[in-house]
Structure formats: C-alpha cells, structure tokens
C-alpha cells in the first residue's frame, strides 16, 4: 500500500521500509522544542529520570517566548529555570530575550527545521514546520522530557486528509483565509488524529509565510500535523536560512486518504472566525451587522511574519486607527522586527496610532500585553478564540488575517480592505 508524505517521513525515522495508518512506531527525533511555560514542567520530569544530560545538545531548542520579557516574578522563575537548564546542558539553541522570537517563526528562520525532519515540540503549534515539508507535531511536557533524554518518541502513524488547492487567491486573501475556510468546512475536530496534506497547483500562488500560517493552524482542526510538498520556493527558503541537509519525501501515487477536498483559492473571500471556536467562520460578505471592536492584535506564531507586517502596513499607511481603538502590532522575531524597521513599516504603524511590541506570545493566550475586559471585542490575527482566551470570560475574539485586522482597526468595526 502506498504511503502519504507524512507516513514516508515517519517510516524513514523509525528505520522501517513502510508503515500504515494506526501502526505504533518509535521514531528518531531531529529536534525537540520547548518554551517558558512547558519546559519547566519537562525539566522537572527529566530530572526524575535516571539519565545523564540530554541526548544531543544541538537538537534541542529552548525558546522562552510566552511570558517574556518576564511579566511577573513567577514567570521570571520559570525563565530562570529554563535558562539554567540550557546553560547546564550546554544547549546550543537557547534563545535569550534580544535574540529570540516566537518559537514557530524563529526556528525556520534560524534554519533549525528543514524538509524531511521529525520534530516534536511542547507547544501545540509545532505543526508549523510542515510548511517546509517536515513532520512536526505538538506534544506535552512529559513527551518533551522523554524526547530530550532519549532523542526518540513513539507515534501512532496517522491517516490523512488531502486538500487539493487550485487557483490563485485574490488581492486581500492570504494563508489565514485559506486555513480559516478549511477549519470552517471540516470543524475543529475535522482532522482529529490525522495528517492534513496540502497539494495542488494553487500552492505555487502561496508565499512561504502563507504556508507557515496554514500549517500552523492544522491543530485548530484537530490535526496531528499539516504538511506541504517541497517546491522551489521551499528549497530557496531553506537554502537562504539553513545549513542543515534536507530530504524531500513525496507521497506515493497510491497513498490512501480518508477524505479529499478541492479548494479553489480564487473563490475564497476574507474570512473571520467568530467567538468562541475557530470553526465559526463567516466571509466578510456574510457579515451584515456592524461589529464594533475595542482592540486589534497583529502578530503571533500564526501571523507575525514579514508578509503579515507588510500587508498590515499597506492597509494602515496614511490612515489612523479609530478613536478608542488599541492596535497592538508584534513582529514575531527580532529579524522580522529589524526588517520591518528597515522597510519603514514600524513608522507606518506608529503614525497610524498602533503600538509595536518586542516579540512575545503575550496577548494571544491572555498572558499579558493586551488583556481584554468584560464585554470587550478584539480582532486578532492569532489562532484561538476560545472563551476567556485573551482575558475576561465575557470578552470576544474574532480571528482574521492581517489585512482584515488592520482594516478593522481603522474602521473600529470588522471590515476588510477594498
């Protein structure tokens, strides 16, 4: 029986000629990731294990990004725990404030994830690296601990859903609209335990940043991973960012898929997920009433990359955010921040009445830097609009693209650029 792209990567890392959906395997890991929230729990677990140090100091990435710069004393203690562990174990890829970024924007940019890799991360959005043709998936802290100690993890080989992307998206439609459309179509558990494999000619019309956004939100459909074929654009990205050798895996022609969907990108419209689930989607044309907004967040591991900054700046340029609007822009890494500065984007944001923050996950998970009060509404380019996710249980989050977020900041209500 033929294998999907994901199954081929897993088979190769388990030392097997072939695997099939449902099979339990133990696979070698190319990278183990943790952040300031999940790593302290993993470190505590690892210390209980009778092991000496980590399996490979070059294959672990520790990225304090959620509550940094330290938001309070307890967060500072967590970050200290991660920092001391990194120094003690001489972890090569520990990223301090000043050199860090939001983990899933940072790792590809630093060249730490490439095609053909198997990556686990104690963060659910670890699935982002599928944009480069890697198998990557989120796990908990105990799995991270076992991964750091042994360099291995067990997996149930996933079945797959195939999405044929065709056509070219129209002007203000980006990767965020594609993935919100898909989640709206299949639901937040539509891909539960499965791979989401994206194929088709339409992919050539998606930038790398679009693809990172799409793979990033595979978890919001319950997916184990999201993955793209490796094309010239992905190869060029890896050559620019990484010295690591990459391996290209292609799905067999007779690979088995549980479900198949075809999506014509040219028909998609700016799409917004209403409270309180990413599957509650409406296109901008389906919104008939005015939905007043108090805050806009443009950033996160989903939409804090340079394309996102450029799109937001294009919309905000020469405009000003609505009276009473708090618009928070967060470039996802120091390099993106620098690039945005050199391109004059930060000036556009500030002149438009937005604020620009150092890289942090902060507002996305209601950590700090943009908490919502009771009854407040936020349009956010982040990935979850669960109850209380960004603050008070009676606040509301509308997930959208950077274009919609920026236009909404100007209008003071949910809007899309014309």
């Amino acid at each position, binding site marked *: 029986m033929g294998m999907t792209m994901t199954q081929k990567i897993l088979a190769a890392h388990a030392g097997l000629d072939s695997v099939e959906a449902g099979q339990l395997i133990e696979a070698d890991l190319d990278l183990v990731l943790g952040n300031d929230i*999940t790593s302290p*729990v993993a470190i505590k*677990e690892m210390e209980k294990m009778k092991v000496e140090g980590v399996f490979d100091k070059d294959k672990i990435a520790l990225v304090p990004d959620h509550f940094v710069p330290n938001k309070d004393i307890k967060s500072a203690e967590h970050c200290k725990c991660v920092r001391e562990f990194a120094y003690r174990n001489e972890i090569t890829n520990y990223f301090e404030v000043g050199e860090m970024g939001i983990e899933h924007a940072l790792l590809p940019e630093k060249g730490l994830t490439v095609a053909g890799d198997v990556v686990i991360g104690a963060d659910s959005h670890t699935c982002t690296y599928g944009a480069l043709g890697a198998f990557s998936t989120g796990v908990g802290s105990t799995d991270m601990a076992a991964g750091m100690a042994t360099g291995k993890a067990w997996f149930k080989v996933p079945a797959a859903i195939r999405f044929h992307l065709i056509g070219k998206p129209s002007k203000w439609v980006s990767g965020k609209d594609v993935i919100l459309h898909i989640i709206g179509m299949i639901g937040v*558990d539509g891909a*539960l335990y499965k791979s989401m494999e994206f194929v088709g000619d339409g992919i050539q019309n998606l930038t790398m940043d679009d693809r990172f956004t799409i793979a990033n939100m595979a978890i919001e459909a319950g997916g184990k991973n999201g993955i793209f074929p490796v094309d010239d654009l992905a190869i060029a990205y890896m050559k620019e960012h990484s010295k690591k050798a990459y391996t290209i895996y292609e799905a067999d022609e007779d690979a088995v898929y549980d479900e198949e969907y075809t999506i014509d990108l040219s028909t998609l419209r700016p799409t917004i997920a209403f409270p309180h689930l990413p599957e509650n989607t409406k296109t901008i044309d389906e919104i008939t009433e005015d939905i007043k907004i108090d805050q806009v967040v443009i950033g996160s591991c989903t939409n804090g990359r340079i394309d996102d900054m450029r799109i937001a700046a294009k919309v905000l340029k020469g405009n000003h955010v609505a009276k009473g609007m708090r618009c928070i822009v967060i470039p996802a890494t120091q390099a993106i921040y620098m690039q945005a500065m050199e391109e004059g984007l930060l000036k556009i944001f500030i002149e438009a009445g937005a604020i620009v923050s150092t890289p942090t996950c902060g507002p996305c*998970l209601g950590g700090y830097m943009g908490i919502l009060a009771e009854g407040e509404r936020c349009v956010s380019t982040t990935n979850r609009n669960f109850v*209380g996710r960004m603050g008070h*249980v009676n606040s509301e989050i509308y997930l959208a693209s950077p274009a919609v977020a920026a236009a909404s900041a100007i209008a003071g209500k949910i809007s899309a650029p014309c």
Partner: protein
Amino acid sequence: MKAAKGIVFKYGDNVDTDVIIPARYLNSSDPAELAAHCMEDIDKNFIHNVKHGDIIVADKNFGCGSSREHAPIAIKAVGISCVIAETFARIFYRNAINIGLPIIECPEASKGIENGDEVEVDFDSGIIKNLTKGTQFKGQAFPAFMQKIIAAEGLVNYINQK
C-alpha cells in the same frame, strides 16, 4: 487497578485547555495551585463542588487547543478519578496518560450520562456503570502497561521502575 467511582460533572463539545486551566495561571506549574483554578472559565462552581474521586464526562474533542500538560495535571490534582468523553484531542490524550490521569473514550457513555449521576468505571474491563440510572456502557479496557503507567502516577515514574 482500582475502579473509579464518583459524581459526574458533565460538559459539552470542545472543552479546550484554556478553560480547563486559563493561561493567566500558567506562571505556575505547581499542581495544587493549578488545581485551585481547574475548569474556572467554563464552570466557576466546579472547584467548590468537586470531591475526591469525582468524574468528568464530556462530549466531542475534550482537551482541544494548547498542549499545556498543566490541564490534565490540574484535573488530576483536584481529585478527578477519570475523564470519559466521546473523543479526546490527541495531545491531551497523550498528556493525560503520561501524567497518570485515567481517561476513556466512549461515545455511548458520554450520551447516556448526565450531570450529577453517580458513575463507576472498571478499568480492567472498560465497563462504565451509571449507578443513578442503572445503565452500563462498554468503553475500551485499559491495557496492562497503561494501567501500570497510571499506577506509577505517570510515564517517568513507570520508566524509572522498569
């Protein structure tokens, strides 16, 4: 492995890890501190009413969202003896077993059990009894190695014992 027996707290579809333990409390990883805020954003009364041994029953996709292991840690630390759901989100499923919180997928039980029912779960057979209604359901039995992980209070202790 000892059967679980307790009063049911019943929830619907897509109970996410943000409502199980809101991120504003993730500046701590202390189980007791996490337990004090367990289910806070979906059920403010939960923490005041829950007793040691009680059971959570939910519909589809329990534990979706963030990979925070703090979520099953909080549920376990508050004294919940078992979580039954129609389906679980995959990271939560893995995390629950890894930290030694028994969980069972059983769509029939999830439909046939209501808030406040008294329920008993036998892990050897996978039999779930609704003592209030006098009905019973067959969930998946816990394989021996999984029972040992639960008994050892998690994967790490289990590995160390081997």
